[in-house]
């Protein structure tokens, strides 16, 4: 077809260079572009702008630890035998010689003692999982407290939420694989929890374990769930999560030059390529060193699982601590009627666990219903400027943390020389009281910070310079803020509480106000009413103060 004599098929070379052969890299790129359209892709993304803030790297920690988990996990599958066949141990770890154990446990001991570097990779894998879940927790809190979940990012919030939940279950199925005494106890706990489910409990238990607990199947079944099913779904969600981050463009805090219609920062190539790429190595390096110095899950100390044995101080990994706390704090209620048992003592914690997670998942939709705001939001809120949301989030975290204490009530009791009963009662009461106190305190702190911002804008910054006036009065000199600072402190939006409106229309006919509408008006008042926020300073107020008597 082509009649051109130029050896450069794309003809895209710069003038004066058009007759030369394009550089090799460009030719490869041309080849790929002709098949994949990479130039159009790169046009939109190569110099994509990302804003800078320390809190934006929390998500990166999650992404990188996820990659580390996959890399090290693939390595571990090369040596791990997901089998519950009982064998006698004859490996190089002397204290276990001759003991009966499952092949799963034996192969994990082999990975730890006979495969050079196996222990390191195992520990990196486990540490990375702990960092992954902690990272997701903190990242989620960052998104929550800055309102980054608002339109258009609600779907991405749900993706992230699912990753957190699936991450917990992937972690649980993973640490259960070695079939050691501690993890086996955790599996037993899970089986007990499954049994508590009305009607279907015993059936699910029989089907999951291939018969009665522990049976000989669960390690192989957990294995395929842990290495294939859940990570497969999670990988898809991670990719979707990242695509949406690119598509929506990152949020940013208010500041000079930063609006809801732009994104200010530095380009992907080269700055974030280097920073984010480098950060992967920092996270990986940090976790590798952690695995070098800090032992995690030393299963050879615990020994193989026996359903009739247990060690004291049995704890799940931290991310299961909340569920563990609920289970420990709940009184042992059981109802027996009509020949059936309702195991409320286990069932209620399971339900609360689900409700608690669902609450945080649904929050974006609740808030957008209360505000009635359908616009896109790309400017982040400072937590103080959304006091009710912040207070709600802190209350949630408080309940979560109290249950973490509950999950380790035995450890707390022995370390601080307290009675286990006292700790448990503290958790029982604290679970209800703590969030309320945290809510009130947080809201007040937020309002106080808003007042301070208001004062700063209107009266300037306290300079610390004391001036004595001619008539003897001492005053502190206030320095006016720069326009940048004033803009930043007043850039946030403030909603007005939604009103139900008159209950009687212009003809005197009573208008019906539906329950949800009333609830919404109430919530809206709680969020944005007089007690919900401090009105931000207006230009008029500022002018009056600055033009009039100047200072005080």
């Amino acid at each position: 077809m082509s009649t051109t004599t130029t050896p450069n098929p794309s003809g895209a070379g710069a003038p004066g260079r058009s007759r030369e052969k394009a550089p090799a890299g460009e030719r490869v790129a041309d080849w790929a572009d002709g098949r994949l359209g990479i130039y159009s892709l790169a046009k939109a993304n190569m110099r994509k702008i990302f804003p800078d803030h320390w809190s934006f790297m929390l998500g990166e920690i999650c992404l990188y630890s996820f990659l580390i988990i996959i890399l090290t996990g693939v390595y571990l599958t090369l040596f791990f035998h997901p089998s519950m066949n009982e064998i006698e141990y004859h490996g190089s770890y002397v204290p276990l010689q001759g003991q009966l154990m499952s092949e799963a446990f034996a192969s994990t001991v082999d990975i730890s003692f006979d495969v050079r570097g196996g222990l390191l990779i195992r520990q990196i894998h486990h540490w990375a999982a702990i960092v992954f879940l902690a990272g997701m927790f903190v990242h989620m809190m960052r998104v929550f407290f800055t309102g980054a979940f608002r339109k258009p990012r609600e779907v991405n919030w749900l993706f992230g939420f699912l990753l957190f939940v699936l991450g917990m279950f992937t972690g649980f199925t993973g640490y259960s694989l070695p079939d050691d005494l501690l993890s086996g106890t955790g599996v037993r706990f899970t089986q007990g929890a499954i049994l508590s489910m009305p009607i279907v409990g015993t059936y699910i238990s029989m089907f999951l374990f291939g018969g009665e607990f522990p049976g000989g199947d669960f390690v192989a079944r957990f294995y395929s769930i842990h290495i294939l099913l859940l990570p497969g779904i999670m990988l898809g969600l991670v990719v979707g999560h990242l695509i949406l981050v690119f598509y929506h463009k990152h949020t940013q805090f208010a500041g000079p030059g930063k609006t809801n219609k732009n994104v200010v920062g530095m380009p992907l190539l080269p700055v974030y390529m280097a920073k984010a790429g480098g950060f992967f190595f920092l996270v990986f390096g940090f976790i590798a060193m952690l695995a070098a110095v800090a032992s995690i899950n030393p299963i050879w100390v615990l020994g193989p699982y026996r359903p009739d044995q247990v060690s004291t101080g049995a704890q799940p990994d931290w991310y299961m601590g909340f569920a563990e706390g609920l289970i420990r704090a709940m009184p042992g209620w059981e109802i027996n009627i009509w020949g059936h048992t309702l195991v409320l003592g286990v069932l209620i914690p399971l339900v609360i666990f689900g409700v608690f997670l669902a609450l945080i998942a649904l929050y974006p939709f609740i808030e957008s219903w209360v505000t009635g705001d359908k616009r896109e939001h790309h400017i982040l809120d400072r937590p103080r400027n959304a006091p009710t949301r912040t207070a709600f989030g802190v209350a949630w975290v408080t309940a979560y943390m109290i249950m973490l204490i509950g999950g380790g009530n035995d450890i707390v009791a022995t370390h601080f020389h307290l009675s286990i009963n006292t700790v448990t009662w503290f958790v029982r009461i604290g679970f209800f009281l703590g969030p309320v106190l945290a809510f009130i305190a947080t809201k007040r702190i937020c309002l106080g910070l808003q007042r301070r911002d208001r004062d700063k804008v209107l009266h300037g910054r306290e300079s610390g310079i004391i001036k004595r006036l001619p008539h003897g009065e001492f005053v502190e000199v206030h320095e006016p803020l720069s326009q940048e600072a004033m803009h930043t402190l007043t850039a946030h939006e403030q909603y007005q509480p939604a009103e139900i409106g008159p209950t009687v229309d212009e003809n005197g006919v009573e208008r019906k106000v539906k329950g949800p509408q009333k609830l919404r008006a109430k919530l809206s008042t709680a969020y944005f009413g007089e007690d919900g926020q401090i009105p931000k300073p207006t230009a008029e107020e500022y002018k009056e103060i600055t033009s009039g008597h100047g200072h005080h």
Partner: protein
Amino acid sequence: MSSQDIPEENLPAERAADEHAHAHGDVSVAANEKDPFADPGLPPHEHRIQDIDERAAKRSERTVALLFTLSMLATVGFIASFVTIPADRIVYIFPLGHISGLNFALGMTLGLALFCIGAGAVHWARTLMSDEEMADERHAIAAEPEVKAKVLADFKQGAKESALGRRKLIRNTMFGALTLFPLSGIVLLRDLGPLPEDKLRHTLWSKGKLLVNMNTDEPLRPSDVAVGSLTFAKPEGLEEHDHDFQTEIAKAALMIVRLQPENIKDKQELEWSHEGIVAYSKICTHVGCPISLYEQQTHHVLCPCHQSTFDLSDGARVIFGPAGHALPQLRIGVNDEGYLEAHGDFEEPVGPAFWERG
């Protein structure tokens, strides 16, 4: 409940300062007077020392190169450690104590190799790459009305051409087929395990089975059970090498203590005991952990998992913690040869409660 009824004017107005958004640092006095809080635009770029001083830039370059070189050395160190350090070498490293030398060496060298790459890249980006802030425009995510109209029209056309709405028979049978076929997948899961039936109600214990000491593997005599001690037992005939040992012991595990008969408060407990020796299921009725802590003075046993506490002198009733009912007791006696034996199976299911337990 929709929020369509919220008028737009109830929402806070967007700031009318967008026109200043891209002005670099020109704080116009006019704008200031009009709105003291107006967006002054991006502040002017401030140069770093590396931007002005080539010697500083050179220093940065050397730092980055040094970090990358360190990484290379660390990788060499990793390989050297892998080859030279035996897997079973234990070394003392302060303050970590006695740890595996190989794990420490491999982890530190690998960590260093990775960390230095990261530190080098980040230092490079922070000191030598341009740090001038730039702005990208955002575009509304929702489609323009024309686009939306076109898509809806296309969809209508497609739906019409499929005739799905008109040919109801096709539609209904298709939905039927699509709804039914996943059933095969569910049916296939049936053989994951057996039905529960009464499996959770029975254990290996039966009339005449001897109580065998878990530690010594010998049948127990009453004289073997001392006051104040906690003895674990299994049913005779169950051996550790048995194929189903784990599953059977998960239900049959027994704990035996000796109390003074006059201290036993529960009437049935006294009847089912022998000379003050009582046998209870070791499996906690909460979620199935093995109970293993015994308080001699009070005769309380505690489950170390969730701290359910049972009073063995009073029918093993729950006195604290999340367990919902007492531990099942095994009725015991002695046979003609003087060995402790079971008088039957547990009369109620052992372990965690479940729906069919009743």
